């Protein structure tokens, strides 16, 4: 609904209805370059270093008599795992973890600024880095006492 009313945004926060290029062929061939680079990278990993992105724990066979000591979420889930663990109550912890993502749906209401985008909003740019640092901190906390590497 918001997308259909206001259209897509862009880094400048300005209206982009004035000057547009067709998708084909300009953006198709532009994206092809990225696609070939990506394919070359993933082919190199698959053929020459298949363990590069793996985890040594995956080589330990499953043992029903030994419960793993802790959960090891993927890195992109670590901030939300940290939020889940930050709340002592288990139900409220789940609510907080879901709420941390669902709160994004409230951003059209919470964002009171008339200017779209952060290019011309110095305070917003500072505030953004506070959130970025907070997410990195939460991700680090989520990885504590869970990963077997120190």
């Amino acid at each position, binding site marked *: 609904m918001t997308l259909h009313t206001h259209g897509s945004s862009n880094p400048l926060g300005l209206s982009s209805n004035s000057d547009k290029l067709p998708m084909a062929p300009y953006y198709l061939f532009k994206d092809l370059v990225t696609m070939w680079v990506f394919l070359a990278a993933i082919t190199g990993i698959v053929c020459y270093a298949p363990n590069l992105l793996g985890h040594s724990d995956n*080589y330990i066979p499953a043992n029903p008599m030994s419960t793993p000591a802790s959960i090891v979420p993927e890195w992109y889930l670590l901030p939300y795992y940290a939020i889940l663990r930050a709340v002592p109550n288990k139900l409220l912890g789940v609510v907080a973890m879901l709420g941390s993502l669902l*709160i994004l749906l409230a*951003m059209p209401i919470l964002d009171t600024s*008339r*200017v779209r985008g952060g290019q011309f909003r110095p305070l917003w740019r500072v*505030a953004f880095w506070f959130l970025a640092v907070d*997410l990195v901190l*939460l991700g680090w*906390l989520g990885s504590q006492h869970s990963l*077997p590497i120190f």
Partner: protein
Amino acid sequence: MYFNTYDYTVSVGHIDSLLCDESHRLHRYKTSQHAEEPFITIGAIASIFYFGWYLVIVPVVGIVENTLSDLDVPTADATAATAPATTAPSMQQ
């Protein structure tokens, strides 16, 4: 610290020795490390800040920046250049 010997590049031949001894010691150590005190407090503060950022900082920053752009007080030497801007209607969304 035996953890230094536990690296990611474990070859298949090492798995058995790792299974029998190393991983059990490792698991005992890890379970003893759960929920240490400084991390609980930091986690609570960081989580509160995460929600506070959305619920408080985002609306306040928007209002402050709207207000600052409405004020748009021209300085003495730039009065000639910015004077029309103060009387122009403010940009609506």
